[in-house]
C-alpha cells in the first residue's frame, strides 16, 4: 500500500523540482527586468499544473512501459541472432519516428521558404511543398541509417569516438561545398530529429543490446545511438542542398 502511494507521489515531487527553475526564470524576468505584470496568471497556473502532472505520468510510463519493452525486444533480437531483422527493425524505428516528427515538419517548412527566397527553387506553393517533403524524407532516411550504423557499432564494438570524429570531419568537409542557405538548417536538423518518445526507446534498445551481447559493456557500448542520429542528418541535409542547388 505504502509502496504504491510512494510510486505515485515520487514522480510528482520530482516533476515539481524540475519545473521550479522555469517558474523562477519567468518570474525574475517578468518582475525585475521587464517590470511587467504576468498576463493571465490563472492560465499560467493551470498550464503549469498540466505540465507537472504530464511530466510525472510520462516518467512513470517510461519506467513501467517503454524501458522494459525496449529492453525485452533487444534481448529477444539478441537471442534470435538474426542480424538482418535487427537492422531492419533499427532502420524502421529511426525512419518511422522521424517522418512524423512535428519539429521536423516545422523546420522543413521554414527551410523551403529560405530556399524559395534564395532563388534555389521556384517561389510557388507546389515547389516549396515538394522541397519540404523531400527534405523530410532525407532526414528520416538519415535517422534510419544512423540507428542502423549505431546498432552495427554495438554489434562490432567499434569505438564510438572514432566514428563520431570521422562524422565530424565529414560534416566539416561537406560544409565547405554546401550552399550557404542550407548550412544553418542542416546543423539544426541534427538536433530536432530525436523526439521525446524515440529517445527512451532507442536508449533502451542500445543498452539492452549491449547488455545481452557478450563482451559488450552497457555503459560504453549501449549509449551512442542518439549521437549517430544527430550527426547523420547534418551530412544528409547538406548533401541534399548540394544536389538540389
Amino acid at each position: 500500500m505504502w509502496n504504491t502511494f510512494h510510486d505515485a507521489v515520487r514522480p510528482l515531487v520530482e516533476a515539481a523540482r524540475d519545473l521550479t527553475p522555469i517558474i523562477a526564470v519567468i518570474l525574475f524576468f517578468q518582475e525585475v527586468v521587464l517590470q511587467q505584470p504576468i498576463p493571465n496568471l490563472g492560465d499560467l497556473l493551470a498550464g503549469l499544473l498540466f505540465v507537472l502532472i504530464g511530466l510525472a505520468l510520462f516518467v512513470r510510463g517510461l519506467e513501467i512501459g517503454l524501458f522494459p519493452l525496449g529492453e525485452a525486444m533487444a534481448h529477444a533480437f539478441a537471442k534470435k541472432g538474426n542480424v538482418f531483422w535487427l537492422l531492419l527493425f533499427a532502420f524502421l524505428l529511426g525512419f518511422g519516428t522521424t517522418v512524423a516528427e512535428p519539429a521536423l515538419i516545422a523546420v522543413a517548412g521554414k527551410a523551403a521558404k529560405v530556399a524559395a527566397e534564395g532563388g534555389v527553387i521556384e517561389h510557388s506553393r507546389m515547389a516549396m511543398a515538394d522541397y519540404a517533403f523531400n527534405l523530410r524524407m532525407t532526414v528520416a532516411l538519415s535517422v534510419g541509417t544512423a540507428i542502423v550504423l549505431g546498432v552495427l557499432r554495438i554489434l562490432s564494438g567499434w569505438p564510438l569516438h572514432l566514428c563520431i570524429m570521422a562524422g565530424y570531419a565529414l560534416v566539416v568537409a561537406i560544409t565547405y561545398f554546401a550552399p550557404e542557405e542550407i548550412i544553418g538548417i542542416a546543423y539544426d536538423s541534427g538536433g530536432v530529429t530525436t523526439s521525446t518518445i524515440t529517445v527512451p526507446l532507442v536508449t533502451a534498445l542500445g543498452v539492452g543490446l549491449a547488455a545481452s551481447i557478450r563482451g559488450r559493456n552497457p555503459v560504453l557500448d549501449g549509449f551512442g545511438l542518439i549521437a549517430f542520429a544527430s550527426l547523420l542528418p547534418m551530412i544528409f541535409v547538406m548533401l541534399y542542398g548540394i544536389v538540389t542547388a
Partner: protein
Amino acid sequence: MNMLDMFVDTMLSTLRDVLPIAAVLLGFQLLVLRQSIPQLWSVIRGFAYVLLGLALFLMGLQEAIFPLGEVMAKQLTDPHFLYGSAAHIPELIRWQDYGWVYVFAFAIGLATTLAEPALIAVGIKAQQVSGGAISAWGLRIAVSFGVAAGVSIGCFRIVTGTDLWLYVVAAYVVVIIQTRFAPRMIIPLAYDSGGVTTSTVTVPLLAALGLGLASTIPGRSPLIDGFGLIAFASVFPIMSVMGYAQLSRIMGKSQQIKEADNAL
C-alpha cells in the same frame, strides 16, 4: 470546453506521433520475434501513461509557458527596451547592449533543459546502467549548463553576425581534445546528450528567441541568422558533460589524496 477541445487535439497529435512507432514495435513483436511480451499489461499501461503525460505536458506548455516565453523574447530584443526609446537606436549595433538577452538565453536554456523529458529518460537509464556511478541529476545539471552556455553564445553570434560554421568547427575541435582526456565511461553518454537536449521544451522557445533577435537587429535576416541556435544547444552539452566527468575525477583524486594523507 475549450480546454477539453485542446486536450483532445493534443492527444490526437501525440497519438499520431506514436502510431508509427507502435506499428513497428508490434509488427516485429508479432511477425518476427513471435514472443509474448513479458508483463504485457504493465507495458500497455506504461504506454498509456506516456501518451497521456506527454499530451498534458504539451498542452500545459502551449497554454502557459510558450506564449509567455515568446512575448518575453520579443520584449527583450525590442530596441525600445534595449535603448530606452526609438530615437536612441544607434546605427552600429554593439554586442554589449544585448546583455539581458544573453542572460535570458542562459537562464531559459538552463531551466527548460532541466525539464526536458527525453533528457530525464536518458538520465534514469544512465544511472541504472552505471550502477549509480553516473547520477541522473548530475548528468542533467551538466547538460543544462551546456545548453545554457551554448544558447547564450549562439545569441552572441546572431548579434554579431559571425559565421555559424566557425563556431561549430571550433566546438568540434574542443570536443575532440576533451574526448582524448575524458574518462572513457562518460564519452558515449556525452555524445548522446547532445542530441537529447533539444526536443519538446527547448526548441520552440529557442526558435522564438532566435527569430526575435534576427528580425530586430538591422542587417540580420531572420531566415538565415535565425537558425543555428539549436546547433549550439546540441554541441555544448557534449563539452559540459565531459567537463563534468573530468572535474569529478579531479575532485575524486584530491579526495583520495586527502584520505591518504589522513590515513598517514
